[in-house]
């Protein structure tokens, strides 16, 4: 039997100090992010609630029809109607607005980072382990600093969701840009394209189908975070699941749970459909 010697590193304390340091020194910055994010969430949520319920269902049916088929569209509409009958209509709208906000922020941050990684080997080497860590670190762990920065509520939920859902879009953007056919790049170069023209007119459009696959994954992962995010005060369907757990209310748990599943199916199929539309002619990969 060999006991580990009595050595204690204080790395946790350092991280704690670092987080406190960030919180005090970058308070303005975090307030700004808080302001932007909460305004976005509320704006989207208000809009979705303002919309008559039947109009929302019709929109879902039409989207399903356009991206998949008539049958899918009607089925998706039925799913949404069912969620309404569970009495979870407003919760669903909150969840959707949190997801949309998180995905928008993910894209705004993720796509440029992915492009940068594709162009800089050094940056890519630094980012890779960071992305791995973001995906494997148990989500509860970064809920703590989230509360620190943004307090309880939807914005913390967005922050936690970001960390979890950001990696796929970054990774797939990098992969997509790197994967653009070499001859296509050469031909764009041979016409004297500047780097910016190349990125805008050739690399991004060519990479779009793969990037869209990343968007789909990011959206699904954002949805997966809904319940965990409710632990830091996010409202919506996740909150109902949490309430159900606390009350051991099987009925509510099932209804909220199946609502999340319905949402997941609809969002996945529709974002996939969007990616498919881009796939039609774009992309070097056949």
């Amino acid at each position: 039997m060999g006991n580990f010697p009595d050595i204690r590193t204080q790395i946790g304390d350092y991280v704690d100090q670092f987080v406190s340091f960030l919180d005090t020194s970058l308070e303005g910055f975090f307030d700004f992010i808080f302001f932007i994010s909460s305004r976005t969430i509320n704006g989207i949520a208000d809009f979705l609630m303002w919309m008559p319920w039947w109009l929302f269902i019709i929109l879902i049916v039409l989207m399903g029809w356009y991206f998949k088929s008539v049958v899918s569209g009607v089925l998706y509409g039925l799913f949404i109607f069912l969620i309404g009958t569970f009495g979870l209509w407003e919760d669903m709208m909150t969840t959707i607005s949190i997801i949309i906000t998180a995905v928008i922020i993910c894209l705004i941050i993720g796509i440029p980072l992915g492009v940068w990684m594709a162009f800089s080997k050094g940056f890519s080497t630094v980012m890779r382990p960071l992305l791995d860590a973001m995906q494997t670190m148990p989500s509860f762990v970064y809920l703590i600093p989230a509360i620190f920065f943004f307090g309880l509520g939807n914005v913390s939920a967005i922050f936690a969701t970001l960390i979890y859902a950001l990696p796929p879009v970054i990774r797939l953007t990098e992969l997509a840009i790197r994967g653009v056919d070499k001859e296509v790049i050469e031909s764009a170069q041979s016409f004297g394209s500047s780097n910016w023209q190349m990125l805008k007119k050739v690399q991004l459009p060519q990479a779009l189908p793969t990037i869209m696959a990343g968007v789909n994954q990011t959206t699904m992962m954002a949805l997966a975070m809904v319940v965990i995010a409710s632990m830091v005060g996010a409202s919506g369907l996740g909150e109902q699941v949490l309430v159900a757990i606390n009350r051991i209310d099987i009925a509510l748990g099932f209804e909220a749970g199946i609502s999340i599943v319905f949402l997941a199916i609809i969002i996945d199929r529709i974002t996939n459909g969007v990616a498919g539309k881009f796939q039609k002619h774009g992309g070097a990969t056949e």
Partner: protein
Amino acid sequence: MTAQIRVENVSKIFGPKPKSVIPMIKEGMSKEGILNKTNHTVGVYNASFEVEKGEVFVIMGLSGSGKSTLIRCFNLLNKPTDGSIYLDGEDIVAFNKNELKKIRQEKIAMVFQHFGLFSHRTILANVEYGLEIRNVSKEERREIAMNNIETVGLKGYEDKYPDELSGGMQQRVGLARALANDPDILLMDEPFSALDPLIRREMQLELLDIQERLQKTIIFITHDVNEAFKLGDRVAVMKNGQVEQVGTPEEIITSPANHYISDFIKDIDRSKVFQAEHIMTRPNALVSLKDGLNVAVKEMKENGISSVFVVNRSRQVEGIVTIDDAIQGIKEKQRLSDVLRHDITVVNQEEYINDLIPKALESQFPLAVVNGENKLIGFILRVHVLSGLVSEEINKSEAYYV
């Protein structure tokens, strides 16, 4: 013709420290030696040649011979490690970013082996790309693009996407896209290698057609000897990164610089390379219409031949007279024009042996070879046609037998 591109001692080395290898090349160290000693790959080894304005210059070599590396030096997709490339007198290797962008936009365009088309753009938008980069106005670039789409025979396909077109059509788009920029120089990197043989032949002919109209300077890469000799005004043969020989197809076939090249061209279809002028014999004897039969007989006797071509004052062929007809004619006191036979076959000096074979078989007289002004410059016997097809030296002093 003037040299438009001059390549001087261009080397391209791949590896961590390419510049460090240059002194070894200057000392004459071999490619293998350099690879073993320094772990650097030599793509192009000390290449020097000139390309003339308006010619089709073919660089031929097997895969790995460095031909694709070399062609990418002309628009600096590969920057040569050492040496200079003068384009209209300016060394483009020393160009900065903006100068480089300018020549790529205005002077040089490239066609790629796997077409390099933008799959997310329509055919029209593909062809417009180079103009778009140069900020040409929308209406103007549309017009230019449509003209070029028409030039390559794709009118009506402009709103399709590349994946909706066959390989041959896709390469036409590649060609139209390159031509839309109206470049002085067209770089073509094995443009027809990915196409099936029938389409390839069609594209080759079409390229020659287009070239006849536009008179660009074309640098063309291929591994196919027949293609090289068919298209090339001059051909450079590359092996292991080195340019082994530069010359016209005839020069390379008749005097290959070394064993490698003679091996390489062994399979060449000579009947498609050699033209009438290469196998014809220049006539020792010619008779003019006003000369009369006696002169004709005398000429034939002196030269030991059995028939002789008769020309008019501007050296255009009038017909042929045989020794038998001439003697008969003298007996019957006829004139030269009475016994003259007109059923001869006249061929242009640029006709390929391939096309001469049936004519030589059908004609009972030698073929009369004329130049562009229709003047008789030589004749071809059946035996010449045959001897033109074998690789041994063609005996030009063949006696004149029918």
